[in-house]
């Protein structure tokens, strides 16, 4: 793999990571604390149930 291609792929991965971080931050803003998926205070099972209940 050439150095130029490596740079292009690396920058693509960086952009993807930045987008995912931004998305996760925006989600957290809407559901701060244990409403968010990143909170470790509530078990994943409970979160699955809560997500299911949120669906109309």
């Amino acid at each position: 793999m050439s150095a130029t291609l490596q740079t292009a792929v690396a920058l693509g991965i960086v952009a993807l990571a930045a987008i995912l971080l931004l998305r996760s931050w925006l989600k957290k803003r809407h559901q701060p604390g244990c409403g968010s998926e990143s909170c470790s205070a509530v078990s994943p099972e409970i979160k699955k149930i809560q997500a299911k209940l949120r669906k109309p």
Partner: protein
Amino acid sequence: MKLPAHIALTGRKRATPAPERPPVYAITGLRQKVGNYPGVTVEKKIGITWSQHGRPIQIIDLPGAYSLAARSPDEAVLRDVLLGRREDTPQPDRIICVVDAANLERNLYLVHQILDLGRPVIIALNMMDMAAAAGMKVAAPELERALGVPVIPCEAVHGKGLVALKLAMSRIELPLARHRWDVPGPIAPAVAELQASLTDHDARPPLIARAEALLLLTDFDTVRVAGSRPLSSRTHDILNHWRQRWTADAADWSAALIRSRYDAIGLLCRDVVRRTRDLGPSRSDRIDAVLCHSVWGWAIFGVIMGALFFSIFSLAESPMNFIDGQVAAFGGWVKGVMPPGDLRDLLTDGVIGGVGGIVIFLPQILILFFFVGLLESTGYMARAAFIMDRPMSRVGLNGRSFIPLLGSYACAIPGIMATRTIENARDRLVTILVAPLMSCSARLPVYLLMIATLLPGDTVPATTKAGLMLSMYVLGTGGVFFFAWLFKRTLFKGSPQHMIMELPPYQPPRFQEILRHMIERGWLFLKNAGTIILGISIVLWFLTTYPKHPHPDATPTEQIAQSFAGRAGHALEPVIKPLGFDWRIGIGLITSFAAREVFVSSMGVIFGVEGADDDPTPLRDALRAAHWPGGAPLFTPLVCLTLMVFYVFAMQCMSTLAVVQRETNSWRWPLFQLAYMTGTAWLVCLIFYQAGRALGY
């Protein structure tokens, strides 16, 4: 009659893992954490189960309480859901009351009030084995006959009675209660007048209106929470009228009402509970005589905490070395198979360096949660709260505040949410403000990295490392006491409230539950490392690599200084240099505001980028090799200690600030918290570092 769609689950409040709850969770699939403090059920939790007929049933897990007379926000939520006052929660079709058979009389007060509501009720008579061990035989059929509602004997730990409970939940029709008790005569007109007003002006069904009238006359609706419908002004006027009239008459009819209910419960228990032998001190009482002793209790508490931290270091050393070696070998392998370039650097320095630096702490996280689970499961954690009640009262708080603080050792977020059980608003706010000072598990990787850098290799005994770690926890706890004392004497003056806590009986540890909780925590840690920390590490790699230095033969340090992150670190350096930190540590301080453990991955990325290309040395060695431009070592023992002290006090967690904002409904308190904690961290570190320098360290 239609099948039930909403079932509320409630029981008594206790400071324990509420051993009566697990069987119900087993039925509902609500496998939530069971802890030794009331905070775990402070949230309203909802789950779905299926009836015998395959229909979905929504289970609302309500906070525990001894009565419907609310003294705290979580009890107010319970009261309001059951009375149909909540706008966000439907009034339950059925109510399952989980009752401790070993303390039947005390537990029946809440049941008795719920029966007044005229809703179908199922009583889960749990801990029958505990009652038998205490020399009591509780006749469930007689209780069922007396109350007219299904009474299902259960044994939580052994999973007995679950099928019967689920069948009762699935029944299409349930009989209504037929309990009788005499409301004192002089109160009857007040009850009737309030009942009529609640029916006419607050749209309550007649039976619920009567139950609410009885409750209002004993509680006067002192605690209210947001989201509940307020009472009409007419009802308030009637309530105030009776209150004034009774005050003028110097008659305590509220107490008379409570007494008459207890009399009815006492009569009921006389027929239902039989003593099979004389009651002496139980096994738990005998153990408590030692573990809660005013001297021995503290000594044992200290030994247990010391053993916990010693185990974290001694047991985790081998698996940590193994993971460390594998991460380094993997990084070396990637470097070997890929040609030089940005992608290779991203994988080795960003991904492997950042995530690998965090993952090696997994064994210690697992060991910590195993022991915490062990203490909770056996019932010792509630004793720890009891022991801490006295020192807490010295600073103006009580043991009830310590329970959320204990939870904050794992994570400040559930700890802060658990403060909803604190009745006094001032005490609750003080507890929220100081809770993040408790050393949470996110600080653990930072402490461990600094200890590994400060005390390298096998030459230093595990006891020394454990002692240093323990001292950080003690420092954080000391900070909690100091600031609680300070706030209670300045911002939140008021007399301390007394704590009444029911200690659970000691039980053998439930290893299955502990292991499940431990694995769950470990998985969340790995998930966090594989998502947020991975993302931050990748972005940080970019920020430490770009823009590139104009000279291709620039040293790694010159390159990182030229980068975006380097420039941000340099901008921060004048503020942190008096603490002994350079701009590279400054980058870690900035990024770890997202989460404290990100500091470790940031160091992994920065010192990975800075390190030689073919040098897969562990992070702690890379830190030990780091130096100032003049050649002086950067991570001296004093700097490592100062950095640990900084993380003890600094408010480095965005999520916690968001939760404080939500819990206090204001940005004022999280901003105040950010200012006082980070200001304290800077000041303490300045004094600590400069004093250390002056003493020649």
